Each structure stands twice: as C-alpha cells, then as structure tokens.
C-alpha cells in the first residue's frame, strides 16, 4: 500500500527524444481541415475551424487550450458524437487507418467506436451506468465487439480490472460505480475504454476532476498502458503541467483553431505564438518562485462573435494592423519544420521564422 518511487527523476512518460515514433509511416489518425459547426442564434458558427493534425502509432498528442477553444469538439468530431440536433461536421476529413470517418454512416461508426477508437471523459460518474455493476460494464464491449460469451467476457474483464490496478478486483467485480472513489472510477472507465485494445484512445480531461496524487497515479497508468499496447493517444487538457508530463507532441488551440503545434520539448523551450507564450507565463509554478505572473487581458471570444483576422489579435500585446485584416496561416518555422505557428509576426509565411 505504500506509495513509492524516487521523487522527480522517475520518468513515467516517454516524452521527446526516445519513444517518439519517426514521422515516417502512415499515421493512424489524420485530421485534415476539420470544420465542426454549431447552430446558435439562428446561424451556423464554426466551433472548430480548419484543424489539421496527424497522430502516429504509439504517440501521444496533447491538445491544450482554455474552455471554449474547441478541443473537446475536435474529439467528439473524431468519435462521430457531435450532437446532431444542433451540430455537424461541416467540412474536412478524419482519416483513421486509411478510412474517412466523416463519411461513414452511424452503423459502421458503431463498429469502430469502443473497438478501434475509444474515449474516456472527465467525469467518470456521468459515463458509467449507476445501476450496472462495473464488471458488467467492462465486459459489455467485449460481448458486443468480440462476440464473446458472458463467461469469457467476464474473465477478460476481470483481467482488465487487474491491469488498471483495481485492488482486489475479484471481490469488487460486482460492485456498483457509487461504491468507488473518483480515482477508482476513472480506472474502471480506462478498463472499459481499453477492453478491445483500441488503436486510438481519446482522453478528454481524464484527470481534471482528480486530486493531484490520484492524478499522478492515473497519468502513470495511462502512460504504462499506452506503452504496453502501442496505441496512439489524443490527450485533451487545459493543464500545461499535465501536458509536459505525458505528451510527445502538443497542439495549442485558441478559439477553434490550432495556433501552434510542436514536439513537446520544442514547444516548452520555445513557445512562439504569443498566446502559447503568455499561457506558459501565466501559470504559478510549484517548483520555483514566480516573480511576475503574466495575465492575458480580456477573454476568449464567443462562438458567434469571432473577430476578423487573427482570433487572438484583440488580446495580443504584439498586435499590428495586418493581424486584424487577414487570417494568418499555420506555417512551419524555418529552422524547425515540425514546429508550426499561426502568427503573422512570429511566423510570417515564406520564411523569416522567429528564432
């Protein structure tokens, strides 16, 4: 029962350098020019606009941003779970293992969802069924996708619960969600998501509701399972500290667009978009004294009132006339092609990348 491990220095996530798959080879997921729109106030407004990224096998891409920046909508679009009543994927492609998910019907999507792509959410209690035992809920995906019998699925589910380190899983197999603590529930949800050994896991703020010590446990568990299964992970969070500890690459989103994308070490060493840079300087750090805290004036624009030109321009201290006139493109830096930035001043198209 003792918590152990050397403080600071133990590496639980392959980040940067080792463990990063080479960019060669077909990515498991390629999102191209995704547009997802919602109907508000009588018109359709894009919540996600022109979002493109790729994720390789065994790679963790973190999507980071503040509330309302479109990170969850991006994940729901990949899962085909955008609420049809007032939302739709309005453009672009979502290529998963070579197939375009955006073009698939619900029937086909159901075969993929929970089998080859899984998702875990922030609040496990709202995702778990309160009147079914956790054992049943973990086994369900196996019965549905793998045609297992009840006994066989139950045995496999028990093994999964052991793998996510539910203590005395056999005794707790028939317990209900309310009998578990928040951290344990999150582990049950991870077991459910990983039942069919998905090739891609979408994790939407999976540790945000947890205490820091429990968060550290769950992050370590996810990193361990990812390494064991070789799956790709899209990890959505607003916490740059969590990003630093789990990601291989990072995409920073603002107001529905990716404003910067880079390998994790590169992004933290050289944040280039003014938004990313300010965001990093606005976190009071636990490991050293923060002498001056940067605040970003104003707030994220509402979905129906997006400014023209660069969407960050109204809050940007570097703003120049060009910023409010034309949309900046996402372009690679001259000296680091895998580091892309959407900013007229810091990353002007056609070279002159900021160093």
């Amino acid at each position, binding site marked *: 029962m003792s*918590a152990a491990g050397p403080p600071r220095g133990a590496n639980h996530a392959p980040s940067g350098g080792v463990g990063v798959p080479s960019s060669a080879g077909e990515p498991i997921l390629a999102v191209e020019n995704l547009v997802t729109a919602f109907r508000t106030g009588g018109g359709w407004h894009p919540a996600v606009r022109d979002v493109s990224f790729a994720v390789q096998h065994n790679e963790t891409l973190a999507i980071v941003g503040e509330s309302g920046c479109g990170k969850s909508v991006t994940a729901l679009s990949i899962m085909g779970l955008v609420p049809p009543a007032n939302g739709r994927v309005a453009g672009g492609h979502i290529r998963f293992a070579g197939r375009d998910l955006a073009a698939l019907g619900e029937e086909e999507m159901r075969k993929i969802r929970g089998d080859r792509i899984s998702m875990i959410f922030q609040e496990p209690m709202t995702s778990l069924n309160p009147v079914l035992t956790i054992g049943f809920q973990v086994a369900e995906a196996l019965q549905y996708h793998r045609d297992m019998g009840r006994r066989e699925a139950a045995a496999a589910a028990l093994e999964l619960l052991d793998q996510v380190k539910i203590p005395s899983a056999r005794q707790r197999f028939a317990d209900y969600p309310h009998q578990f603590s928040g951290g344990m529930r999150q582990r049950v949800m991870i077991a459910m998501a990983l039942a069919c050994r998905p090739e891609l896991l979408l994790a939407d703020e999976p540790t945000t509701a947890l*205490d*820091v010590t429990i968060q*550290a446990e769950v992050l370590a568990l996810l990193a361990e399972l990812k390494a064991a299964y070789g799956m790709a992970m899209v990890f959505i969070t607003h916490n740059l*500290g969590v990003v*630093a500890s789990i990601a291989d690459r990072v995409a920073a989103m603002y107001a529905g667009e990716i404003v910067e994308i880079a390998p994790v070490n590169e992004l933290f060493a050289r944040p280039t978009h003014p938004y990313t840079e300010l965001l990093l300087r606005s976190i*009071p750090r*636990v490991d050293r004294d923060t002498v001056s805290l940067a*605040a970003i004036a104003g*707030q994220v624009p509402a979905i129906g009132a997006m400014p023209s030109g660069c969407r960050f321009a109204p809050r940007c201290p570097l703003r120049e006339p060009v910023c409010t006139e034309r949309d900046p493109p996402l372009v690679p830096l001259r000296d680091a092609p895998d580091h892309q930035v959407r900013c007229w001043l810091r990353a002007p198209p056609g070279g002159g990348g900021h160093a």
Partner: protein
Amino acid sequence: MPDSVLTVTGLRKFFTVTRGFPRARTVTVRALDGISFHVRDGEAFGLVGESGCGKSTAGRAALRLVEPDAGEIVFKGENVVTASGARLRELRRKLQIIFQDPYASLNPRRRIGKALIEPMRVHGIADAAECEARAHALLAEVGLPENAMVRYPHEFSGGQRQRIGIARSLTLEPELLVADEPVSALDVSIQAQILLLLQRLQERRRLAFIFISHDLGVVRYFCQRMAVMYLGRIVETGPIPAIFKEPLHPYTRMLRDASPVPDPQVKVLTLRIEGEVPSAVNPPPGCHFHTRCPRVMPVCREVYPEWRQMDDERGVACHLHTR
C-alpha cells in the same frame, strides 16, 4: 501570537451523516479534528490539501458560517465563538468570504448594483447616495465596467463573476478575507488576472487572507505561510519558501512532487497505485497518513504523532520528527 489578527485553537467540527440504501447508516465525518493556526496582519495564509481534508470547513468555521463544536477563534482580541448579536454582526463585517463559484452565491434575478449595495444597507454604513458611489468605486477597483451595476449575473463570464464576488466581499471594508478556491474554476489566463487583482487589493487595503486551495503552485505564488491538512488535521505549517524547499511531512512532499510542472524536463513523481484513499469518515488508526506513507514505521500504525514545533515558524505532526 502577538502579531496575529486571527488565532484559531483546537477547532473541531464533526458532521453526522445518514446515508445508504436500503438500510441507512449514521456515520460521523470528522471534518475538523482539532486544528490550530494563526494569521498575521496583512498576510496571506494558505490552507492546502486534497478534497475532503476539511480545508473549506476550516475556512467557514473560522467565520462561524458553520458552528464549530469546540475550539477557540480570536480575532483581534475578540472571541468569535461566543460573540452574538451586534458584536457578531460587527465581526462579520470585518471577516468576509470569496467562494469558488460566485454564480451560485449571486441572486440571478438581482442586478449587480443591488447585490453590492445591500450589505452596506444592512450594516447601515452609509446613506443611499453614498452606497451607490461606493459600489461604483468598487466596480472600478475590481476592473468591471460602469454599466455592470444595472446588469444581471448571467450576463458575465466566469472571470467577471469572480470579480463581482470579490467586489461584494469588499463592500463592508473587511480586514480578513477567506478565499475558498477563488481561482480553481477559472481558465489559466483568467486565473492569473484574478490572482493579480487579489494581490493588488491585498497590498492596497492591507488585507489578511485565509487562502484555501488544492493548487500548490497558486498557494506558493500568493501566500506567505501555509498549513497542510490531511483528513481533518493539520500535518505541517511553516513559511512558504521553507516548506517548498524542504517539506518535513511525507504528505507535503508527496503533494509537492505530484504537482505537475509545465516543463517536460522536470519529471513528476511516479505514484504507485494503492487501495481506496481513506476518508474523514474512517480515518485509519495511528497517523492518518500511514496507509499511503512511503516512510511508514511500526509506531505510525499505532499512535497519532504529537505536534512538534520545530522553531518559531515551523511545526509538523510526524513520527520522523518526534525526537
């Protein structure tokens, strides 16, 4: 403590909860199991710990928003626990609170102006015109536009609502503010705005703070001293720089090392999975933390460690530090 404005001694609060189905059981939650601390003049004192450790109850009990079962609270020489009537009202004016979710504490059908003016009227500090002028000045002080006076809570964003909550806590010109997770529900950029605002107010008005938070980074930035709580008890107190440099209690160390740092070069502590974390309903015998402690000794399972004051500033309850 001579220079302290608020001194809390042996504060205790147990809640009785009946729950369960089909057979309900009555359990006792030992939310505060005898805690003592003091806050100095103009100082921000941090109360940190994970959910269920009793930090919010401690903040509320200090203002008697929940009645403590036992213990003593002295504010500037005056006994808060026994005060009643006009004396208590006067104390309440000097002790105010900021909540995590200001939206929940604002009447949705009442304009902001009225929410700001009402406390001043209740306490009879000024006439109508003077109240109005003060409300305008407060809005300006917390960085809200003039026209906020005539708008309703739903018209504001989360960060602006927290500014309203802060403005309202200042209406009676308090001397001590309890800030209960004031930035936890906010986005990072807004969190920084609010922290800077609170800091400015603290300097300008020479306010003392009890700053309750689970985020050690925020506490390190905002506070001068802190107390770490675990299952209803304080396990360590001391000045911020010293605690972060060399935590005495293994729980403080674990909290510090498990907090994520926005730097991929710094590796966060790897924690091994354990069983269910104990709660204040069933604190383990001996030291409450022994079930999770990496340095547990046999004595820890038997005896709760006595509080040891290491020097004027630092104290800890851990068998590693009993002589």
